[in-house]
């Protein structure tokens, strides 16, 4: 008994100035509390799990769709209006084949000279032909083009010199080929300076076009051969029965996007006048503002992303309210524990931090599970949903931040309630 008494008095005298509870201990306490009811913790986190998974999938799909649209827009070239002959693409029965050749060089020149704000005008004719290099051949699309065609449609020459002014004027038998056609005909050999035939006409390859990939409408844009417009008229368009000087479409580019609606309207007026179409008569051409169509699609996508974002936000808020709800229940259930912790020396700050840490761990844990589910969901969407997706670390960082913020925001009030309990009442609480 004496020996023990001595050891006790030594300890009593050894009490040193106390420090503060560490953050690691607070987190440890929170983890311990959550492990006490794993099922409840997971169920509480369910709202955040679903919310975060939804955020990940939606942002990924939204960004993927946006990226594809951006690519389509850049492939489109400048602010672009396209004019086709005939009124009914697909409804051509009414006007028949006679309307096909309604556009010509005169229309192109008139658009260039009479409409303000037009930067490029290009008339072209299109057709299909068998391209042949020795024993390799491939059925491809050819386009007879003028110099303005390239900037208007966003084409660039990647290799080789391209067409010179003399090529256009002299109807030279030169050709620019797309990367897909190059791969079919040359299979890795250098095509520059080589001869190919389109139909029976030999051409010299003077360049390879920069790849544009898939078009927004699904076709391979790189499966193409371009020749000067005059060359096409004289050498390739023989069986098409085109009147002299006619073109099968006109591309118009404006310097400023805001000019597009006006220029579109003025082209219509100009061509009706030139083609002598009476007021109320049916046009023998179609004017399409392609940029507008794409930007309408972009806006649709934006709206969809916004809507999906709203759904994700709502599910996060609902998840957060679920956390707040359960944390309030937890505080009430654990009043005696809180009282005891206060009696042994925990202050309001320590109690507040512990319950805040519990709420944050629930929502952060939910966030981590949600991110995993979201990544799986995104991959499944891209594989089976045929939707373009773009998954990047920023989305994941954003989702993690959201889940922490959810826990902080919705855990604050229950934690504050716990920290403001009176120690005596908490200790005496019956429950």
């Amino acid at each position, binding site marked *: 008994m004496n020996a023990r008494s001595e050891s006790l008095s030594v300890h009593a005298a050894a009490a040193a100035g*106390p420090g503060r509870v560490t953050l690691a201990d607070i987190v440890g306490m929170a983890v311990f509390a959550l492990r006490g009811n794993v099922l409840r913790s997971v169920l509480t986190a369910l709202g955040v799990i679903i919310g975060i998974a939804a955020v990940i999938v939606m942002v990924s799909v939204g960004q993927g769709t946006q990226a594809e649209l951006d690519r389509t827009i850049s492939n489109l070239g400048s602010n672009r209006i396209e004019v086709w002959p005939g009124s009914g693409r697909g409804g051509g029965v009414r006007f028949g084949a006679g309307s096909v050749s309604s556009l010509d060089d005169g229309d192109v020149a008139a658009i260039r000279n009479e409409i303000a704000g037009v930067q490029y005008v290009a008339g072209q004719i299109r057709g299909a032909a068998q391209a042949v290099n020795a024993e390799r051949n491939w059925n491809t699309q050819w386009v007879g083009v003028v110099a303005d065609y390239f900037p208007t449609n966003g084409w660039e020459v990647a290799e080789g010199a391209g067409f010179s002014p003399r090529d256009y004027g002299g109807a030279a038998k030169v050709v620019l080929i797309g990367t897909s056609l190059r791969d079919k005909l040359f299979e890795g050999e250098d095509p520059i300076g080589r001869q190919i035939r389109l139909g029976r006409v030999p051409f010299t390859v003077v360049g390879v076009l920069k790849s544009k990939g898939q078009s927004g409408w699904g076709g391979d844009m790189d499966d193409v051969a371009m020749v000067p417009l005059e060359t096409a008229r004289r050498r390739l368009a023989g069986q098409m029965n085109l009147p002299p000087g006619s073109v099968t479409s006109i591309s118009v580019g404006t310097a400023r996007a805001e000019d597009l609606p006006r220029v579109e309207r003025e082209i219509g007026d100009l061509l009706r006048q030139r083609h002598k179409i009476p007021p109320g008569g049916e046009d023998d051409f179609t004017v399409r503002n392609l940029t507008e169509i794409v930007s309408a699609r972009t806006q649709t996508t934006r709206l969809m992303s916004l809507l999906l974002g709203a759904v994700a936000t709502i599910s996060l808020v609902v998840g957060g309210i679920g956390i707040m709800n359960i944390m309030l229940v937890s505080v009430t259930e654990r009043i005696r524990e809180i009282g*005891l912790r206060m009696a042994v020396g925990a202050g309001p700050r320590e109690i507040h931090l512990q319950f805040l840490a519990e709420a944050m761990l629930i929502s952060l844990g939910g966030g981590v599970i949600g991110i995993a589910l979201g990544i799986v969901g995104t991959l499944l969407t891209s594989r089976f949903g045929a939707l373009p997706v773009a998954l990047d670390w920023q989305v994941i960082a954003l989702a993690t931040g959201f889940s922490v913020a959810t826990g902080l925001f919705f855990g604050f009030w229950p934690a504050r309630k716990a920290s403001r309990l009176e120690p*005596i009442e908490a200790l005496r609480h019956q429950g």
Partner: protein
Amino acid sequence: MGAPNVVEIQGLGKVYSPGTPAEVVALRGVDLVIARGEFVAIVGPSGSGKSTLMNLLGVLDAPSSGTYRCDGVDVAGLDAAGRARLRLTRIGFVFQGFNLLSRMTALDNVMLPLAYAGVPRRERAERARRALSEVGLAERAHHRPSELSGGQQQRVAIARALVNHPPILLADEPTGALDSRTGQEILALFQRLRLAGITVILITHDGAVADAADRVVRIQDGAIVADERRREAA
């Protein structure tokens, strides 16, 4: 270290719900001085104000009037956080219902105040183990409260109260939930702690329990009615 008197109370009063029809005067002008190393029993029937006095002594509540110096520290003017710090360093609590956390082992329960005191993690288990062996429970360190008898649980609670080396041990009906033989063992433990220099303040309604103390303070209707010293403090 510290003041010679661990408790210095002057004119201490406590009024609940002041200025309302539900106003209750629980303590009216109590003076009390307790020296370091005393074993004092505060005795009174229920409603006498002894629980209020216990709450004030334990710095769980703030007085309405009067002054209280706890181990030399004036309690007036401390906020909730300041009172918590004072409890952490100066007072160990022992309750009638033990108030152990049921999911934690005895050792973890004893380690709890060490975490709030910021004691480095590796020191905690060692100090908690020593505190447990001081109350004779070294071999039960890894048992949960539900695997311990009432007397053993109360010893764990005492170890927890002592682990931060507070000068004051405040016990509220510590034998109330125990049979009389186990209760006597707990009281004997208090006497030993008193010999080790710890001030033990025991709050009880039971005169037989109070007999274990060196000094008995009787309280009735919110005032001290008797203060008898039975033995000299060690």
